[in-house]
């Protein structure tokens, strides 16, 4: 083990133990009450956000006087002592696999980023945590670990980037065996690049941003960019059927994967060749993708790569209302001319985006902004409380991008859309990386919230968005939430037959006896509403334990039985016992 790996195996040193992302990056309100984003990592870092406070107070009815700070440090004595199977630990040591039962490391791997998980940590509440963390270094290490786990009946829970939002990483309360967190972070090497076939063979523990950076150095990319790519791992993408922002060009994980190697209690599963498509019965990759760590550990993956695009261009379009925006996206999808990414924010999110505008550097910019606003609202007659914005990202060779751009803007014009500049577009995408940090700011001031997603046929997009948002508002009211919640959505992906819709939902919980319970009930009802309106249980977050109750309804009893029988064959003793999905 190199020193480089030791630092990497302790991510808690540079990442928050009870919040999102890097320790040095966070939102705060400074002494003047101005919003600020600390650190140096992001475009927004070190900037003052003058409108954030007003937006925050007006949206949530909060006051900066009322704070709910988090427990500053982890109380190690609150962590339950590990339940270790000594011979298992001994044999691991003999096999040369790194392991630790250090409490901080165990707590760090005991959760994903669901609201209830983070909320509990902020209050210093520690539930069931894994008893041991192991760091395999390669595929063969995993084979050994799984063999030993079977031998000693130890429960294994694979851990990649820890960005789950489906309670997938929570240790099942009913689990009495020793729980071992199998951290894949040390399996992070690119093993080879095949330029003839444009594929790359990677160890599955690699983190998204590292994979892209290293490939970029060779002039390639996978183009797979989920919003969590800073922290999430390749193995995690495979295990949850991840989706990337630029799937319109590169495809989702299922389109990108050529070959998967997974270690299961029955042995290793993989295909014998790397043919681009096969007719060999149901695709066994589809048992693996979305298995959410219930069948084994993905150790190595061959993925498609593409040469880095010559040119990238952001863009944005303002629409008079959400309905027009959706119609435009639908038309873009119909003509199959979607840019690498196209996203449509509703009015609330548009205003939210404005609240995150950094202080403008010159009078000229602010003058220009004023002029734009005047043009859109007064001259074009857009109602400020109805208009909404689409953000775009084009990629490819320069000429084609410009041509493509024109095509999309021409379609937009038919739906009353006005081009609103590159800057707005770029800011929109930057926001997707910092938005997760904002929840921590909210939690400092009695505001809790979460995002969730679905996919839905085109003809139901509008109805679903309206009904789910309204359901959230209504359920909050009925459960005693004093101030109307922030309930907003955006369309983040387009497909031939439908779209992916993302909801953000947050509320001020002052005065509530059990805010988490209220939150969970509202999220539950929102999911019911999604399903009643023809939306799916999940587009890319997965099921985990959070949405398990709807699996039967989602895939039918026979479907569930099929999945169960696979589990029974592959892992009869439930070694991979995270109890997700089924």
């Amino acid at each position, binding site marked *: 083990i190199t020193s480089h790996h030791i630092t990497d195996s302790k991510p808690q040193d540079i990442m928050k133990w009870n919040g999102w992302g890097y320790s040095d990056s966070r939102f705060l309100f400074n002494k003047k009450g101005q919003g600020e984003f600390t650190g140096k990592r992001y475009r927004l870092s070190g900037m003052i956000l003058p409108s954030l406070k007003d937006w925050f107070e007006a949206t949530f009815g909060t006051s900066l006087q009322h704070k709910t700070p988090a427990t500053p440090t982890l109380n190690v004595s609150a962590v339950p002592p590990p339940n270790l199977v000594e011979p298992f630990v001994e044999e691991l040591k003999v096999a040369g696999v790194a392991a630790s039962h250090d409490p901080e490391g165990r707590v760090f791997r005991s959760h994903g980023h669901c609201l209830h998980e983070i909320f509990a940590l902020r209050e210093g509440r520690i539930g069931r945590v894994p008893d041991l963390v192991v760091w395999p270094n390669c595929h063969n290490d995993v084979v050994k670990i799984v063999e030993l786990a079977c031998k000693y009946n130890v429960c294994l829970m694979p851990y990649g980037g820890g960005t789950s939002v489906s309670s997938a990483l929570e240790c099942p309360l009913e689990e009495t065996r020793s729980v071992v967190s199998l951290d894949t972070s040390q399996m992070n090497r690119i093993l080879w690049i095949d330029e003839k076939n444009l594929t790359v063979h990677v160890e599955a523990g690699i983190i998204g941003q590292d994979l892209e950076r290293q490939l970029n150095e060779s002039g390639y990319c996978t183009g797979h960019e989920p919003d969590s790519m800073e922290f999430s791992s390749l193995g995690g993408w495979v295990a949850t059927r991840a989706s990337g922002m630029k799937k319109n060009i590169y495809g989702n994980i299922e389109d990108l994967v050529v070959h998967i190697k997974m270690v299961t209690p029955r042995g290793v599963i993989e295909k014998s060749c790397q043919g681009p498509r096969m007719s060999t019965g149901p695709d066994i990759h589809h048992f693996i993708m979305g298995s959410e760590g219930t069948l084994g550990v993905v150790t190595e993956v061959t993925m498609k790569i593409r040469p880095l695009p010559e040119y990238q261009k952001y863009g944005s379009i303002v629409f008079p209302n959400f309905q027009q925006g959706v119609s435009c996206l639908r038309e873009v999808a119909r003509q199959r001319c979607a840019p690498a990414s196209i996203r449509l924010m509703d009015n609330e999110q548009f205003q939210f985006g404005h609240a995150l505008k950094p202080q403008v550097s010159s009078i000229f910019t602010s003058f220009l902004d004023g002029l734009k606003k005047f043009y859109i609202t007064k001259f074009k007659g857009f109602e400020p409380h109805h208009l909404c914005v689409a953000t775009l990202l084009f990629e490819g060779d320069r000429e084609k991008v410009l041509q493509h751009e024109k095509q999309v803007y021409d379609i937009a014009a038919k739906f009353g859309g006005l081009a609103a500049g590159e800057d707005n577009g770029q800011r929109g995408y930057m926001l997707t990386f910092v938005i997760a940090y904002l929840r921590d700011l909210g939690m400092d001031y009695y505001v809790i919230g979460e995002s969730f997603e679905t996919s839905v046929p085109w*003809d139901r997009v509008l*109805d*679903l968005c*309206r009904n789910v948002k309204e*359901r959230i508002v209504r359920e909050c009211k009925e459960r005693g939430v004093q101030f109307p919640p922030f309930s907003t959505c955006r369309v983040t992906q387009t497909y031939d037959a439908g779209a992916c819709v993302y909801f953000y939902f947050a509320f001020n919980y002052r005065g509530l006896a059990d805010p988490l319970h209220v939150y969970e009930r509202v999220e539950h009802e929102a999911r019911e509403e999604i399903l*009643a309106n*023809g939306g799916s249980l999940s587009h890319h977050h997965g099921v985990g334990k959070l949405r398990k109750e709807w699996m039967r309804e989602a895939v039918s009893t026979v479907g569930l039985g099929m999945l169960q029988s696979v589990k029974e064959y592959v892992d009869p003793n439930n070694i991979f016992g995270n109890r997700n999905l089924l």
Partner: protein
Amino acid sequence: STRRGIATTGRLNPKVNPGLKKRDELEDMLEERRRSSDARHALRCYAPAVYKGLAPREVSALRGAVLQSDALQHVIGQVSAECGERRELVQEEAAHLLDEMAHRLRLGTVRFFAYVLSKVFKTLFRSVRVNEEGVQRLQQAIQDHPVVLLPSHRSYMDFLMMSYILYTYDLALPVIAAGMDFMSMKVVGEMLRMSGAFFIRRSFGGDKLYWAVFSEYVKTMLRTGYAPIEFFLEGTRSRTGKSLTPKTGLLNIVMEPFFKGEVFDIHLVPVSISYDRILEESLYARELLGVPKPKETTSGLLKARQILREDYGVMHVYFGHPVSVRSLAQGRVKRSQYNLVPRHIPQRPCLAAQALVGEAAFRLVRLQEQAMVLRPWTLVATLLLQNPDGMDLPVLEEQAAWLRRLALSFGAFLDWPDCKPCREVVGAGLALHKNLARVSGGRVRLAVAETPGVGQTAEELAFDRAVGVLSCASYRNQILHVFIRPALLSVALRTANSSRKDEVYTCFNFLWTVFSNEFILCPGASVQDFEEACYLLGKCCAVQESQQDIVMSEGGHATLAFLRALLDPFLQGYQVVCQYLCKETEENLRENKFVPAARNFALQLILAGTLKCYEALSSDLQKNALAALVQLEAVTKVKVIPTQKPVHARL
């Protein structure tokens, strides 16, 4: 508690004792009209609050939206394929149907109506009293959700008055589903159209295209929040003063956009409209006796001018709490059943949805009934009908006071002024209805002829008397919903072999089933109704309940006797129908021959002096009795293929 009421009424909890229900105050809306200029009222600035999600739409744009809708296009495609007609022709036909149907709401016409109706209503009515809290609730509901207005239907005045009230209170004007019969009144039909009425054919059972045009038209208006939709659950005006068994066709249509997720919720607002005197009073009685309903003609309406000279007392309009369809469907209908078929393709609703709509229809009619303002005269009419030989005025007053207490304890919405002595209240009712009851020599009796007039046959005399009795009965019928459950129990107590609860219930349930077409008894709720009846009779100390038994209390005789007498005309009438069916010798009786024959049979019994119950002549009662017998499988309906006319064969 009223605020919470809005949120929870959606569940329509039938267990709530109606007697404890808090009701809103009523204000006279004509008062303002009597003080200020009608012309100014008609021309005033009218800017109602609209649905928050309203997609602004002109009448012509609405037409295009309906004709181009996926749903209608789908059916046009089907029809064109089925009958081999060119698609354009079917499309044209659909456009034609829509034009025949569609309203053309114009503010100018509404203003004209506002002016004329101000004059008319002030002449006809002493006051029109409205619960303004209900109006406010409605105003809020209209902004929050698509709204369906469901008024009770007793008179042509109903929908004119509804629109008039909404205009007066600056609420969004409704579009109203009206029967096609109005269309024959050329000018008036067009006027109504321009004030928001749309016209539907009375029957279009098999006509797929018509159904598609119609339902898409209604749903488009609802989905877009274009205007509140108004229709009559009872389908037609009740000629008897009792609520009619609700029709579910339109209710199905307006609830579907919720089931399919096209709207977040829909609010159904029951509206109870009650009259001191119904304009069509004797007209209805004659219709029930077989004089056909006069065809609606404009000149006929003009002849009705003489109506304007009479005093129709007070009119009451009570806007009930909005009932949320979402709350109704909660846990009952799985909306995801529509996930697998495009929503524009017609899909038969699942059994759960059908059951829900049926149940909702009954409950809504009951809500209408319960908020119907009852005037003291209805109690007087009830007593007079039970005493055909007349009553001494003091006795009548005393009994009316007794009945008032009973009705109130059963939860009746009785408008009996507390401050006035009983004598005055009864007197006022008798004065307003002097055509129906006569006071002479300190004795009150129904105003029916004793001896035949000059040149009048015995039949004509009986007919005359029947008109009087049925007119009077139409007022008694207004309070029946208050007493019906205890009345059924009173009869059951008498007929049951023992006082054991289960035996009494068996009798109750039989009567309940027999009369399920006659009164608003929600399907499947007989146990609930039995419990309610036991509770009410226990409350007024008429019966005593133990674990096993239910018996009359010592002082319960008067109450039980009164309640039995209340049901007596119906029991007798149904018996006459049964006797007739048993005596009828023709093996196959055509349905359209049944009513005249049954009426004639009853008339002969009356002429022979063996039957005193004139209500047995009512065609409404006869039809209900037949329906009950069909339901009980005592009579079967057979379709005769060549003529397509249903025929009854006795078992």
